[in-house]
């Protein structure tokens, strides 16, 4: 059975700058999300958005200090979290939602899915949830073939984990010892279905990896530092040519599957518990202040800087024009 990843992670063991980068990334993700929800409420963007609020620690922890621009990621259905952590400009993400030419798709529009930034290793995502699991082994193969130490990280939810491509993917990655890190963002729900209703497991989804001989563990995805440490081991293993790792990161979404989802299928007390006691940002902020890493003023200053950045990004994206109708005929072939 998959081990629960545990490690002493006293914030005092890390530099202030190192920790504040986590904090800034998480705040950026949350504020971006809130800005987008406002655009949806203003009727400027459709409600086909899957909010990542409540799971920022998982993306910031895995990406911020472990991956470089040369490493590849395939993000998941709440993937703005990962794209932001990987450095995709916020105006470009907003541009995709708004359908202006500022977007990464230059006006074709994209929801969470289909924005891409290959210059930062963000290789896109499949609209058929979970299909990125097959694609990622090819990308990892390419790095191994070329002899680089690039790592491919594939993010997917508990829902996507039930799709067939996961098993083809684990078999290849294990067989060919590919530099892939699997991150199953387990927020317990695939739209309305609880993981216990849809997955046959011993105890954890990560247990599946055990059968393929792939190192695996379960980690609290809402503890940004713990997530960083778990990921660091996996990335080191991949860079050294020791093959894939499967991380099941536990989290919970604060909002429904899409904007407008009544989200009445979760137990209100459970949701309250996650929001109040297990919010990744709230808890990390408290530990920074408690350890005296930074002051309330510094926290407020980061938040203000991010707010300014978000406002400018939305303005840039909104100010950009819509594409001409001919845009749909461009770029089908190289």
């Amino acid at each position, binding site marked *: 059975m998959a081990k629960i990843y545990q490690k002493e992670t006293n914030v005092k063991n890390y530099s202030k700058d190192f920790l504040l980068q986590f904090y800034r990334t998480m705040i950026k993700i949350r504020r971006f999300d809130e800005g987008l929800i406002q655009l949806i409420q203003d009727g400027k963007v459709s409600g086909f958005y899957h909010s990542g609020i409540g799971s920022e620690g998982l993306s910031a922890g895995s990406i911020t200090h472990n991956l470089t621009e040369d490493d590849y990621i395939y993000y998941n259905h709440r993937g703005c979290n990962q794209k932001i952590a990987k450095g995709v400009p916020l105006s470009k993400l907003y541009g995709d939602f708004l359908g202006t030419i500022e977007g990464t798709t230059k006006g074709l529009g994209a929801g969470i899915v289909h924005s891409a930034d290959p210059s930062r290793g963000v290789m896109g995502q499949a*609209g058929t949830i979970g299909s990125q699991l097959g*694609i990622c082994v090819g990308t*990892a193969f390419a790095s191994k073939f070329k002899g680089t130490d690039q790592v491919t990280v594939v993010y997917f939810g508990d829902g996507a984990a039930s799709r067939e491509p996961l098993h083809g993917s684990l*078999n290849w990655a294990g067989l060919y010892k590919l530099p892939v890190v699997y991150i199953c963002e387990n927020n317990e729900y695939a739209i309305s279905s609880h993981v216990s209703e849809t997955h046959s497991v011993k105890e954890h989804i990560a247990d599946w990896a055990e059968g393929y001989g792939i190192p695996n563990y379960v980690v609290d995805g809402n503890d940004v530092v713990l997530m960083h440490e778990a990921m660091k081991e996996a990335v080191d293993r991949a860079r050294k040519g020791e093959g894939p790792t499967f991380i099941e990161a536990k989290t919970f979404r604060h909002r429904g599957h899409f904007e407008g989802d009544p989200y009445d299928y979760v137990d209100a007390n459970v949701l309250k518990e996650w929001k109040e006691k297990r919010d990744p940002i709230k808890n990390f902020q408290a530990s920074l202040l408690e350890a005296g890493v930074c002051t309330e003023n510094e926290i407020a200053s980061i938040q203000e800087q991010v707010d300014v950045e978000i406002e400018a990004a939305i303005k840039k994206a909104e100010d950009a024009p819509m594409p001409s109708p001919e845009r749909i005929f461009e770029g089908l072939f*190289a």
Partner: protein
Amino acid sequence: MNTISRQESNVKVRTLTMRDAIIEALSEEMERDPSTVLFGEDVGKFGGVFGATKGLHEKFGPRVFDTPIAETTIVAAALGMAITGNVRPIPELQFGDFVGVAFDEVFHKLGKWRWMHGGQMEIPVTLRLPIGIAGGAGPEHSQSPQALFMHGPGLQIVVPSTPYDAKGLLKTAIRENNPVLYFEHKVLYDMKGEVPEGEYLIPLGKADIKREGKDVTIIATALQVHTALDAAKTLAKQGVEAEVIDPRTLAPLDMDTILDSVKKTGRVLIVHEEPKTGGSGAEIAARISEHALFDLLAPIKRIGSPDVPIAQSIYLEQFYRPSEQQILDVVNELMEY
């Protein structure tokens, strides 16, 4: 006409099977471009169940490798390799029918990944798919699914009928920075034809007039090109000159060559081994009627296999494949107009 082999008399011409022409194309391109990799089920040390990759593993080592039985992952991985810009994959599906297992990967991903993501990546993937009725293989190992993909934007579809075309088109496909589905009819693997020595390429989107004629246009693909040519010989004895056109690629489709011929003959028969309903002939017929209706002297005719699954029985199988007699009957009907 196969212009290169006929016009350049100083080029040595050999007789090769289509299988050997394919192996030669793969070998030349893998030698030319060290970023190419070839993979699929049993394509390595075994050389492929149809022998179409024989000797390549010995020559190129780990660049030619066997995979698990996992069509979904084979195609998905090819895409994931290609978009890095570091690998030019040449995957094989053991039987073209198995494309059903990888439908999402072919239809949604290979063809659309570049466009969906704003045109930021290139997809140099050549997916080889053996097709066709070939000796009692049954309903899921005998089909010709190429027409399905004419409905899928972003995919180029190659269907060679001769060793010469097979080699020149495959080399072009591999050098393409866009996905190509390359359908090989299994009966044609052993068919021999002239292949010049040395380098040549055949562009995608250029039909070949396999036989010139003035009375009727027969548009045929894969094995049916040969059935049509046999029928044309018989028709010539009756005083009917059939023009036989092989589109060679269904996407892009060379309608100019087809329409020029239709304008000349006024009579059209489209023959393919795919089921008649929704086959490639349906699209070709529709385009002819859109662009050349008033050049027609007779209704456009199509011959395909029946709209039922392909029986395992070798005895029954022969009745699926369009025959020379069927072609003769339809052409004679067309000549009544």
